[in-house]
């Protein structure tokens, strides 16, 4: 693939604050149209990475290209193609929802092209994020979940080619979370928008991600589809079934093949079949534990 087929290319990215190294050589690519979820414990460097991609933070070393441009030297035309959702917005509390979206959208009008009309029509956008009934509500009076949906809407109003979201679902109840997932799916399908988002929620990563990277201790410690990652570490699915009422359990790397064989041998005698996939959570916890353990070992102890 050429450069134009990647929305993001990061190679050997380093970030140092004084003597503390937050990013120690991060490398990953995001092809256009992909949804990449970045997982990692607190302090792993997720926010720092996203802020470097946003062009809001200068890196110490490494090569970064976002939509073909180095964000450290990007201009307003580039800015118009990026949508940003950060962790804590409280701005424009007195503005009405639709008024604010229309205002934000007005900045994108000069960046429209026949193939990419900008901004996203406000009525459609409100409907997409489920805020049509709150179009006239002052932003300060929205609930937490509604407020976050508005933030997502503002991130999308310019019809960006790439959306960068830093923990967009923090504080969501399960319903709001499901709604958010629906919005992201709709946007990525409709516009082929590339999405990079960070989260702590493994279930969320599994639902949204085409691909997952895990950042721990300042480096990428895993990179793959959720299923690949789960396989890579936890390895095996668990299959439970009964034959004539007697329960059985077996772990297998190939659950589909195993079940096929099972039916060939026992046919109608099989009951209560249950396949539990190796979960991303198992992988994640195992990987992060491995990556973090040596870092917390006090240096002096081995000598004593």
């Amino acid at each position, binding site marked *: 693939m050429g450069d134009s087929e990647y929305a993001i290319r990061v190679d050997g990215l380093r970030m140092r604050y004084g003597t503390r190294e937050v990013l120690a050589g991060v490398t990953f690519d995001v092809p256009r149209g992909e949804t990449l979820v970045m997982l990692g414990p607190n302090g792993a460097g997720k926010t720092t990475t996203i802020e470097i991609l946003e062009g809001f933070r200068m890196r110490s070393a490494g090569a970064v290209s976002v939509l073909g441009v180095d964000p450290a030297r990007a201009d307003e035309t580039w800015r118009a193609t990026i949508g940003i959702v950060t962790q804590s917005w409280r701005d424009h509390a*007195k503005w009405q929802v639709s008024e604010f979206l229309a205002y934000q959208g007005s900045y994108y009008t000069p960046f429209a092209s026949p193939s990419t009309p900008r901004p996203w029509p406000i009525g459609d956008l409100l409907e997409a994020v489920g805020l049509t009934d709150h179009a006239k509500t002052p932003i300060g009076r929205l609930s937490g979940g509604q407020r976050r949906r508005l933030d997502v809407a503002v991130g999308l109003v310019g019809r960006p080619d790439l959306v960068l979201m830093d923990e967009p679902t923090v504080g969501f109840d399960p319903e709001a979370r499901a709604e958010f997932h629906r919005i992201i799916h709709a946007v990525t399908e409709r516009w082929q928008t590339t999405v990079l988002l960070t989260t702590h929620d493994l279930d969320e990563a599994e639902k949204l991600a085409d691909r997952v990277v895990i950042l721990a201790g300042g480096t990428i410690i895993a990179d793959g589809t959720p299923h690949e990652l789960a396989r890579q570490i936890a390895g095996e699915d668990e299959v439970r079934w009964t034959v004539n009422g007697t329960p059985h359990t077996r772990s297998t790397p190939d659950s589909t093949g195993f079940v096929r064989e099972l039916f060939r041998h026992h046919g109608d005698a099989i009951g209560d079949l249950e396949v539990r996939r190796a979960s991303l959570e198992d992988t994640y916890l195992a990987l992060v534990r491995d990556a973090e353990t040596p870092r917390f070992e006090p240096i002096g102890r081995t000598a004593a």
Partner: protein
Amino acid sequence: MTTTALRSGFRAGLIELRQNFTGAALIGQLFWPVATLVAIWFLRDMTVAGARLGPLVLPSAVGMFIAFGMLLTVQQLAADREDGTLLRAKATPRGIRGYLVGKFVNVSATVLAYLLILLVPGALLIGGLSITATGWLTLAWILALGLIATQALGAVFGALVRSSRGAGMTSVPVIGLIAISGIFYPITALPGWLQAIGQIFPVYWLGLGMRSALLPADAVTVEIGESWRHLDTAAVLGTWAVAGLILAPIVLRRMARKESGSRVAQRREQLQQRVG
């Protein structure tokens, strides 16, 4: 392309103006100009060097409210940095430019509203003003220069203060400055060295300029050198305006460069710790 920033900024300025002057916010907006008007009404018939104090103070207070544009700018910049408004602008193409246009429109219009609240009832209740065509012209150019100078300076200080608490502190020196700028009594009553300090800053010149625009010609006898000193007024306000316009983009750019999501979050935590 720049016209988008202008148009969008104008839009933001007017929307926020409407917010400032409706509902409960209106009371806060009316308080200071009305309180000032009441104070002037009480001292209207006192005399200074044979002249009624009321007509002398009313235009001076108008000048003072033009200078308040600086404080409004400082406070809004600090508040907007804390709640993420500025970061939002930064994440938007030409958003910072639009934001600044919006602030200028909003603060200028707010100052204009203050002037109307002071002048319309003031002219009727206190009297003694002389309103002529040349007077309006004088008022217009001094007001324009004053709005640019004070807000450019406000943007510089607003970019430099660390928090909205720091922004509140900037009103202390401004109040001190008002005391030595001949707003509530003629500057000539002060010792010479205080007069000299007062004449460095815009407040004195805005007061003088407004008196020259709104008072009859013979009121000039109370002033330093018995002159309205329009040339000096233009020179001092112009110098502050140019200095502000040179410095503001530099410090604003430095401030905007440092904004990021984690910074806004960090400030928010600090704020909560202070409140909690």
